[in-house]
């Protein structure tokens, strides 16, 4: 695990759970795995605070534990900590795909980390029951819950096997529940503690990630060819879910005839040209491949290959922006020719000798390319000069770029933290005024009084608070964009193991 990962994880813990959890997280990150006593000793934190921090980490799946005899070892899960940045994207996905009920349910579940269906539905209901705009009803919520469980966006949480004093969490298969609306209504009106529901649920990140992966692939094909091609790929991915494991590197082949049925709905142009589209997608992106001739042709989706292409695109953009288009040309040239000598780089890239050498060196310096000396065989005796072959190790480059993303994420977050501290007083004042005004509006107090409260913020304060907030949201937006890049890189790495 890289040092940069440790730094960014530390920033995230600080931002979301405060300094103390950050300290405990750092300690765990550094030592990998350790019992509570050791954490207390190395962090110097009071025992109660370490306990509270560990509870937080365990609750949100940011750490796991394992019993060794009577000692419990805690282990940080940095990958899950990074996912905290992605929560808004999960909610956006829910909102666009399933509507606002789904969004509310998933939001509540992310906040609770895990809870029972009854508690989840009832708390969402209670939270928004006064909100006329939302117009919630419990039946609709229940149905949404069921469809989310069916589609796999939420799943049953692992349960504790209690053979032992120290529990062992075992994953369980999700059974879509049969929720009784009357019981839900009863629960709403009585104390939630009396509810017998003891099946806990949590958000299934992986299901969301499949959506994101598909979305990236479909968009890429759309950019390269056209909307129809994107639709066709979407259809093929849907088919893939029926017949292959969802993270398979290649889907099992689908016969053309099956695809044709689905193509009917995409449109006239698609219907008549399915085979042509398949060929163009295959030739232009390599995301799919014709694997056989049975059934009018068999086609499979090449997920792993697609992710390689996508990561290459990420790397290309990075090289282009960091070192310029000419460097990117050299980078791609070397990658497409596998191994290349310096002279050939210059000849093919059509760059002046000096510039070409300089850029090659810069690429080498930033570890985008690597060089392999090859000793010429004894043809000209011992005097033979070694030749240097340049090449691109995509896996290594992806590591370099991922580390840069971690660094950038860390930096963006730490600037954001710094700016928040600088403007703490102002932002806090503005927040307080806003809360008061909100309360006053709800109580229907006269505008005059509201204006008086608003006037406690002087015009310069209003301007500088707005400026500060604008900068903070720029930083927040870049965190989200960085996470998108990280998503592609991480997905690529899942196939590299």
């Amino acid at each position, binding site marked *: 695990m890289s040092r940069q990962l440790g730094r960014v994880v530390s920033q995230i813990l600080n931002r979301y759970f405060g300094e103390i959890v950050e300290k405990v997280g750092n300690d765990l990150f550094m030592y990998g795995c350790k019992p509570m006593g050791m954490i207390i000793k190395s962090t110097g934190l009071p025992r109660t605070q370490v306990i509270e921090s560990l509870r937080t980490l365990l609750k949100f799946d940011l750490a796991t534990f394992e019993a060794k005899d009577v000692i419990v070892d805690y282990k940080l899960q940095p990958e899950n900590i990074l996912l905290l940045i992605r929560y808004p994207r999960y909610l956006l996905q829910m909102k666009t795909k399933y509507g606002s009920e789904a969004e509310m349910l998933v939001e509540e579940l992310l906040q609770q980390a895990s809870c029972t269906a009854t508690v989840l539905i009832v708390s969402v209901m209670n939270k928004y029951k006064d909100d006329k705009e939302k117009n919630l009803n419990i039946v609709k919520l229940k149905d949404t819950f069921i469809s989310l469980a069916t589609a796999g966006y939420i799943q049953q949480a692992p349960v504790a096997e209690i053979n032992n004093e120290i529990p062992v969490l075992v994953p369980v298969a999700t059974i879509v529940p049969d929720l009784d609306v009357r019981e839900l209504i009863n629960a709403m009106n009585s104390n939630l503690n009396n509810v017998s529901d003891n099946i806990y649920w949590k958000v299934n990140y992986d299901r969301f990630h499949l959506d994101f992966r598909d979305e990236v692939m479909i968009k890429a094909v759309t950019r390269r060819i056209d909307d129809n091609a994107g639709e066709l790929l979407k259809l093929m991915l849907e088919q893939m879910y029926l017949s292959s494991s969802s993270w398979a590197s290649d889907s099992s082949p689908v016969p053309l005839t099956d695809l044709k049925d689905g193509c009917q709905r995409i449109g006239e142009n698609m219907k008549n040209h399915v085979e042509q589209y398949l060929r163009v997608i295959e030739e232009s992106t390599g995301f799919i491949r014709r694997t056989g001739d049975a059934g009018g042709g068999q086609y499979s989706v090449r997920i792993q290959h697609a992710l390689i292409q996508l990561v290459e695109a990420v790397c290309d953009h990075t090289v282009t922006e*960091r070192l310029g288009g000419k460097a990117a040309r050299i980078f791609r040239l070397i990658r497409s020719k596998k191994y290349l000598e310096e002279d050939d780089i210059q000849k093919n890239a*059509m760059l002046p000798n000096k510039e070409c050498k300089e850029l090659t060196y810069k690429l080498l310096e930033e570890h985008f390319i690597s060089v392999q000396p090859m000793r010429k065989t004894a043809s000209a005796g011992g005097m033979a000069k070694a030749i240097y072959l340049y090449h691109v190790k995509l896996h290594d480059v992806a590591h370099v770029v991922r580390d840069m993303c971690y660094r950038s994420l860390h930096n963006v977050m730490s600037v954001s933290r710094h700016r928040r501290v600088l403007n703490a007083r102002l932002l806090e004042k503005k927040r307080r005024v806003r809360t008061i005004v909100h309360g006053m509006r709800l109580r229907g107090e006269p505008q005059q009084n509201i204006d008086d409260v608003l006037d406690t913020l002087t015009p310069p304060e209003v301007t500088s608070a707005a400026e500060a907030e604008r900068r903070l949201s720029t930083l927040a937006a870049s965190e989200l964009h960085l996470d998108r890049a990280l998503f592609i890189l991480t997905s690529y790495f899942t196939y590299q193991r």
Partner: protein
Amino acid sequence: MAAAVPELTSAELVAAINKLLQQGVFDLYNQGGSLLYRLKNQNSKQAIKGADNEEKVVYNLIEEAGNKGIWIRDIRIRSNLANTQLTKVLKSLEGKKVIKAVKCVNASKKKVYMLFNLEPDRSVSGGAWYQDQDFESEFVDILNRQCLRFLQQRADKIKNNPRGPIVGRTQSYATAAEVQKYITDLGISKVKLEVEDVITILNTLVYDGKAESNVYPDGNRVYRAIESLLPPPGLVQVPCGVCPLIHKCNSTGLITPQDCKYMDEWLEQ
């Protein structure tokens, strides 16, 4: 002279003669008021005739090498002449404008000799991209942009083409010959660009990730302008992605995110 080629008008004849003179194929003599033309090659052969054996040997070696030229070391080895003597011979031949020395683009210090009237081979001169052995990168850049523009004009043909994506793609494709014609018509090139030259430029577009290429069944290479699979990632939308100091930046020290000028400038926008 006019009598020797009766099928040409005198105006045509004059134009042709002038051109040939310019290229140095003939020499012109004024003999007793009438003009005489003589092919230069024969002339140089004659120049050799009067020369000594060493010059003849060297001349023959250089002539043999054709427009690829011959390296001085190879002449020495094959002629068995001593270094100083060879230099003298070469000097003398150069002085008579029988041979010339041409700098080789592949190796800047290497000189090759060839007959005076020969146009150096591409491998020696570097072809259209070299002006006096200097690589003309600006010229290449202009051509690169123009080729891309040409491809982009037809790139959208593939999108939702009613005749299907294969026909659409074919309409988006351009052969190197088509691009060559377009470039020639633009008149931006002083030198004549061969199809091969245009292919070299089109390939740079492929390496730029701005075009893809395919081969038609008849062996013709075709090119199509394409978009990158992804829009620029978040990494290059933040200062750190383009920051030259990213690897020096740390939590403490002189270069930290909090004190970063680039970050400040970016946030002030």
